[in-house]
């Protein structure tokens, strides 16, 4: 709770920091604030809640910080701080001032933290909305760019529509159970013969979450929005928002609906379609951002595995998967921003000959792509490995085979970039790109983490 309070205060302070002559002030404030909130989350480990400003009763009905929450909360904080670092070098110019941009990143983080720690659907709803509203604005951060405008509008319309569906689901669940509290809902779910409005409510919630994590058949907005939004915001959307949404979804199903198994079939079909559409459509894309958008859809499919094959290890496998995916994605998007800045294009051909010009950058992008594809011994491989092992333990053999097949399809389009970088020659007058210092730091951190988590995934999976 303290971390949420700190970040909320920081949003206001940050806006005032925007008036300062020192342009770095708001960056420093945000970075320190996010780091401090990660520490504040960390000290709650194993329930050491020593400092509650408000009376604990009021909080405990709304938010709870168990170890799963804390680990994911810290992951979200790390994710946000990497994005803040990337913003600092102005490699990708935005039309809105940096202080406002950072404020919106902070509000987004507050929303995400609420979503991973809620115990009451009210907090889930507010967290989801804080996250989404900040994301709508950030998607339009390049105000004069027509494509960014369009992305903001599409995202907004889809998001607002989803809010309606989500709320209708919440209302029906309230009608059936008489409470918004997840423990009360769980008590109701354990009763025999729940009312049919309860099931309709669950289905509507599932549709809303499928929209948010871009799972098929509710993924159609994703390619346009991811391609049109500024690349840095795309990185935020495909990592931070996805983590928050999938963890919220996981918490909801793990605590409330674990008793009812009817929905796991629906989620399984959804996962199968999502993996197919994401991987197969990504093959024909020539725009790298669009390709990563489809790849992000495909990853939602793998993530759904953790939900329908719910077991004791689901949280741990979700964590390993999400950590690997987050760092590899940030690495890939950072590379794309550098290429886009220098070549003014997101096309696959813009990557030609990068291996000769900027070997280090090319190696970074290659590692990111290999990790996303799930090649051992990188972090992405162990994420997939844990998730599929869990599914196999729960006897989901056919869908696991399908997922492995789809991962193999995925290898093809991830390797296309690698081939372009190393085996195609660039235009003769091309010069070396200069990596700004903050990019070097972020890419270095991500690279280390992707390799480290690939070599020793146990350090994360042992936590929860």
């Amino acid at each position: 709770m303290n971390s949420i309070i700190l970040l909320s205060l920081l949003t206001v302070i940050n806006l005032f920091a925007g008036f300062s002559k020192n342009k770095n002030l708001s960056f420093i404030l945000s970075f320190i604030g996010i780091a401090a909130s990660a520490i504040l989350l960390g000290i709650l480990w194993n329930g050491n809640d020593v400092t509650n400003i408000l009376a604990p009763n009021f909080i405990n009905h709304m938010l709870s910080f168990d170890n799963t929450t804390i680990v994911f909360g810290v992951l979200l904080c790390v994710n946000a701080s990497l994005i803040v670092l990337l913003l600092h070098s102005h490699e990708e110019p935005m039309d809105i001032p940096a202080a406002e941009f950072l404020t919106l990143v902070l509000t987004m983080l507050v929303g995400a933290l609420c979503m991973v720690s809620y115990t009451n659907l009210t907090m889930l709803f507010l967290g989801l909305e804080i996250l989404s509203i900040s994301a709508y604005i950030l998607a339009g951060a390049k105000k004069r760019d027509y494509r960014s405008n369009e992305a903001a509008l599409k995202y907004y319309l889809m998001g607002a529509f989803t809010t309606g569906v989500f709320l209708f689901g919440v209302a029906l669940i309230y009608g059936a159970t008489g409470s918004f509290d997840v423990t009360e809902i769980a008590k109701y779910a354990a009763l025999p013969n729940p009312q049919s409005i309860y099931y309709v409510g669950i289905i509507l919630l599932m549709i809303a979450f499928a929209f948010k994590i871009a799972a098929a058949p509710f993924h159609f907005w994703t390619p346009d929005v991811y391609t049109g939004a500024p690349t840095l915001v795309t990185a935020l959307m495909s990592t931070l928002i996805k983590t928050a949404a999938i963890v919220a979804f996981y918490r909801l199903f793990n605590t409330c609906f674990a008793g009812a198994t009817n929905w796991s079939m629906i989620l399984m079909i959804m996962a199968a379609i999502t993996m197919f559409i994401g991987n197969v459509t990504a093959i024909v894309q020539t725009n790298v951002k669009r390709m990563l958008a489809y790849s992000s859809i495909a990853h939602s499919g793998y993530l759904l595995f953790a939900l329908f094959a719910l077991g004791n290890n689901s949280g741990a496998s979700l964590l390993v998967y999400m950590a690997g995916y987050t760092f590899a994605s940030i690495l890939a998007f950072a590379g794309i921003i550098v290429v886009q800045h220098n070549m003014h294009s997101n096309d696959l051909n813009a990557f030609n000959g990068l291996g000769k010009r900027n070997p280090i950058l090319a190696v970074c992008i290659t590692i990111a792509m290999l990790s996303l594809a799930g090649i051992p011994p990188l972090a992405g491989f162990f994420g997939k490995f844990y998730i599929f092992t869990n599914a196999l333990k729960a006897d989901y053999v056919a869908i696991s085979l399908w997922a492995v097949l789809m991962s193999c399809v995925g290898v093809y389009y991830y390797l296309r970039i690698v081939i372009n970088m190393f085996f195609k020659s660039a235009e003769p007058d091309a010069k070396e790109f200069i990596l700004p210092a903050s990019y070097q730091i972020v890419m270095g951190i991500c690279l280390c983490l992707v390799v480290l988590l690939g070599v020793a995934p146990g350090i994360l999976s042992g936590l929860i």
Partner: protein
Amino acid sequence: MSTLLFYIFSLLTIVSAIGVVVSKTPINSILSLIATFFFISCHYILLNAQFLGIVNMIVYAGAIMVLFLFTIMLLNLNKDSEPQHNNFVKVSAVIASGMLLIVLLSAFKDTININHNTLAVVHTNQVGLLQNLGTVLFTKFLVPFEISSVLFIAGVVGAVVLGKKEIGE
């Protein structure tokens, strides 16, 4: 008589809601939407949620709709130049939402048969009164109440940065 009032208000609500969807110009849509909000407020009063009924009028009809009207007036958008979807899209949209309605209604058919003791609760309960709502809002729901301030910061920042004219524009 309450049943009669319910059906009258429901009919009016649905008619004005359809008005929002079919009217040609945005201004007509807004007026229909305000009418819809008014009838929904009447429903709130029938449900003995008097405070919500009033807040609904103040917030939705008074604030949100005025925001819509301002935007339309400022940008001079009230033209009837909206190109229409082709009929295929329209028919499929109607079929889709019709099916959604059928699914929802059929799911609700076997809902809760509340006996008359519970029915009497609706008119005698005090939950919708200001004092009671305030107590719940500031005790049990204190944390969400405070967190919603972050939502408003995001909203304010968004409205300002997106709506502001840049230098040189």
